């Protein structure tokens, strides 16, 4: 018997594969292609206190082996998410994690508080790393003290497990991770998108309506694997690794670098069955390589280094 269950800071997952926030809607959109019940966890779109319209189009641009997005946290607001959307997911035997965002520390605490005790919510992922909104987001994600403050406020506002999602757009990622760990985070997730930009040479204008956007997809994978590797060595919190995972082998890179679980984002757009194929692929790898527990692989590439 192979054991693929993992514990991500108090969130029990039947396998280590989740969907990345913002790339999987509220899950329902993908039911036509996969059984949501097979997923390790579903992480839904960033939720803010009030509804948000998002940024003007065009909101995406394709770049070499990747894409830029500037959605701008379009979402229906926490009341609608808690009242209308989560109830449609509550029957699933898969943990649902809500990604939360805001402009101020109070915003984060408010959303966290409103989701506390809502049936069907297994945990929160704090997005302090969104590059596409003017205030908040990235601002908290680039200063260790602000990041710690948001983490403490959210922890105080909820009993749910709290995952803090880190931005790669910082000079010292390890310092950020250490600060939020110290402030009480139950787990870390990394990486959010890398700040980037593309210019349309024919129109001689930025491609995105928002001018800059977040880079995701295979292009960012080496940066993400490095981030997981460094943080794993410095901070003793479970890590949810993501960034450009398309296949089983990509997911295994993250786990070997130190991730307890992984999230699949952009790959869903290309192959809506990517998550399921990766879940099956990891099981096959374990079997073929003679492991009986996924947790044996976490951080294994560090052995002897």
């Amino acid at each position: 018997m192979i054991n693929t269950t993992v514990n991500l800071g108090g969130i029990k997952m039947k396998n280590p594969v989740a969907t990345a926030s913002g790339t999987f809607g509220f899950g329902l959109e993908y039911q036509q292609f996969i059984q949501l019940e097979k997923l390790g966890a579903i992480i839904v779109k960033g939720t803010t206190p009030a509804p948000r319209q998002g940024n003007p189009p065009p909101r995406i641009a394709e770049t070499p082996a990747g894409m830029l997005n500037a959605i701008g946290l379009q979402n229906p607001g926490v009341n609608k998410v808690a009242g209308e959307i989560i109830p449609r997911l509550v029957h699933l035997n898969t943990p649902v994690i809500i990604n939360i965002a805001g402009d101020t520390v109070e915003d984060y605490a408010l959303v966290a508080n409103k989701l506390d005790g809502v049936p069907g919510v297994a945990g929160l992922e704090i997005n302090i790393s969104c590059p596409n909104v003017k205030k908040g987001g990235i601002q908290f994600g680039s200063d260790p003290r602000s990041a710690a403050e948001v983490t403490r406020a959210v922890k105080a506002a909820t009993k749910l497990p709290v995952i803090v999602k880190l931005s790669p757009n910082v000079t010292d990622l390890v310092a950020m991770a250490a600060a939020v760990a110290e402030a009480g985070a139950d787990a870390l997730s990394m990486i959010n998108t890398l700040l980037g930009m593309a210019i349309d040479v024919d129109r001689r204008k930025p491609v995105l309506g928002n001018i800059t956007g977040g880079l995701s997809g295979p292009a960012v994978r080496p940066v993400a694997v490095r981030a997981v590797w460094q943080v794993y060595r410095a901070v003793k919190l479970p890590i949810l690794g993501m960034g450009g995972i398309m296949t089983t082998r990509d997911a295994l890179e993250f786990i070997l670098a130190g991730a307890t679980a992984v999230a699949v984002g952009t790959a869903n757009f290309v192959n809506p069955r990517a998550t399921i194929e990766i879940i099956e692929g990891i099981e096959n790898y374990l079997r073929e390589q003679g492991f009986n527990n996924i947790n044996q692989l976490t951080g294994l590439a560090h052995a002897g280094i």
Partner: protein
Amino acid sequence: MALLVQGEIVSHMERAPGVFMVEFIAPNLATVARPGQFLHIRCSEGNDPLLRRPISIHAVDRDRGRVGILFQVVGRGTALLARRKDGVIDVMGPLGRGFSTGSHNLMRAGSIAVVGGGIGAAPLFFLLQELARCGDPARVKVLLGARSANQILIKEEIENLGYTMELATDDGSVGHRGQVTELLLKLLPEGVSYVYACGPAPMLKAVCAFLSEAGIPGEVSLEERMACGVGACLSCACQVKAAGGGVHYRRACVDGPVFPAGEVVW
């Protein structure tokens, strides 16, 4: 409910310079597809270009279980797609809300105008197939526009379905010299009661303005860049009028790509 299909390519033709028609086998897709819906097509086998490309369903042959697409090479994705002459094509679909071809449209008194600009003719052929099946081609007027005579697409196929049509070209090499919208403007007072349109944004903008002025209903198919194609990523936002006044973003991939002409904000 969309399908994931690996369809075997059975024909591949360059129909006009840089415009390709590809037909593949997909019986289930052919059965459920509706006019105006689109497919999300993988153009490369590797990670570059990464995203699928939205391409309309151009024609459906339910008896033989075949689906056709008609596309113009404009960049890397479509260039790669054009090079694939045999083997399989990886498509997701049918996606989106297509044209409404219900009886409420076909029962209206007056005639129906179907207006296409350039490659925008692609989804209109499937619409015309469907209108011919459940309506009367004599009541439908087809207006097609393009830059030049050799860019007028699928004229014979449309005539074979029993439709009459009028053409417009920028250079006057065939039909009216000028915009296809000028043909529409002339036709509207002659008892047109419903309009379907697909084409470049400036053309659709003009169509919507004419319809609003004349008080005639219709629907237009919009293009936005898409990532997921299924409503999950919010990449394809387009502004439409909200029910209670004001405007809001809708997703072109699931709330569209076809929208009522009166709702689109230009």
